[in-house]
């Protein structure tokens, strides 16, 4: 939802702190997830993730979430899917070239990053090309499995 998405960016600091705690909790529960089986969890967790992140960030379920590197402004809402910064067409009022009624997600990202510790630095990391096979998959489960070293 657009209004909630704007709210999330305004509260990027708190959102990011909560997200870190949430991630730590998910990682701590890895033995439980493994017991149930990650494959079996994939669909229900992805559904919950879609609901929660869809509401808060207008998440597009790219499956490789980088919200904490983009000031809690989801870059997949950019009509050009830009994950590395704004294009050159941003309007003088900070709105999108393609969808003039929408604030540029990167103008939002830069503002949000300023509210996150090391947020500005995180903006500088070059994001590699998206793996389109992960579309619709749970990013949460993927992160947990990466953290515990189950996958790369």
């Amino acid at each position, binding site marked *: 939802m657009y209004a909630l998405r704007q709210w999330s960016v305004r509260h990027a600091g708190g959102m990011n702190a909560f997200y870190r705690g949430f991630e730590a909790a998910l990682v701590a529960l890895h033995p439980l997830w493994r017991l149930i089986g990650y494959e079996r969890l994939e669909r229900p967790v992805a559904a919950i993730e879609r609901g929660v992140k869809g509401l808060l960030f207008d998440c597009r379920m790219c499956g490789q979430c980088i919200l904490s590197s983009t000031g809690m402004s989801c870059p997949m809402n950019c009509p050009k*899917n830009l*994950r590395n910064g704004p294009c050159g067409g*941003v309007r003088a009022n900070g709105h999108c070239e393609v969808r003039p009624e929408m604030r540029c997600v990167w103008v939002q990202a830069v503002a949000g990053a300023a509210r996150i510790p090391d947020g500005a630095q995180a903006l500088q990391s070059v994001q590699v090309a998206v793996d389109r096979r992960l579309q619709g998959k749970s990013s949460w489960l993927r992160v947990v499995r990466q953290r515990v070293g189950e996958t790369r």
Partner: protein
Amino acid sequence: MIFEDEPVPGYPLPIRPGHTSPGRFERVLRAGHFAVTTELDPPDSADPEDVFRRARVFDGYVDAINATDGSGANCHMSSMAVCALLTRVGYAPVMQISCRDKNRIAIQGDILGAAAMGVCNVLCLTGDGVQAGDHPQALPVFDLDCMSLLETARTLRDEHHFLSGRKITYAPRILLGAAENPFAQPTKWRAERLAKKVAAGAQFIQTQWCYDVPMLRAFMQQVEELGLLDKVFILVGVGPLRSAKAAEWIRTHVPGVHIPDAVIKRLVGAADPAAEGRQLCIDIIQEVRSIKGVHGVHVMAYRQEHTVAEIIERSGVLNGRKPWYPGRDPQANTNRMAS
């Protein structure tokens, strides 16, 4: 100008240490000359002569010619084909690649193909949205973005493999460029975005049209503070405005173009607005050439390409240098035909 190790003018040059391409454009930049590039308006036709005729108007005044890739999301002859034609006769094109129309499979293939045809410079762009052009019903691809495109091109060149990891037997020898718009929001972050592009592989930058020199100065100051001045060659985008009405139209309809009111006023007050527009362009070129870190200008004279020679001549930025063009040295050209 002829390079001392130029066997046949117009042919690829030996690659010097520290250079990544056999192109004349990289030579000019690294030799510290003030470089001039321009943009060829690609024809809506399949006639090669349409391309050659459009290139000839720049003869003797530009170091490289950008071949646009469906700019403004409008359909024209492809940048790949324009480049193929230009390299046939020895011009130094900059092949623009936009992420809008092609996925990573097509783009990587194009980079190899372009390099094989003698293209030495590639400009990596995101591209305009399809809504801006004459085919708004088309599928926007955007599989890569300009940053991952730069990284992809650099991987092909320096690591000799595709994104998949599959080996390339002969890597493309190219100079990589990117665009930057110091005049668009979020203006405070634009220099940092440039830093990111340099980190991703950009060796030269062509900026959006500059009509606000103080704003450019502020941007260049930030670029210097980030320690980027010796890492990238920056060419400032300039271009003549035809009239106040045209300027007004551009600033309201072309996303990302910033034209201050003072510029419009200057055109309104002029007896001959087109001449005033050219003079304004010359004034801006002369102002930006003295800014630290500016290595050249990129003249975008859309539908006024015939004015580029006059603008560059009167600005005096070439300092008597005459960039090579096919037919400049009749004797050498005969050798070329024979070899």
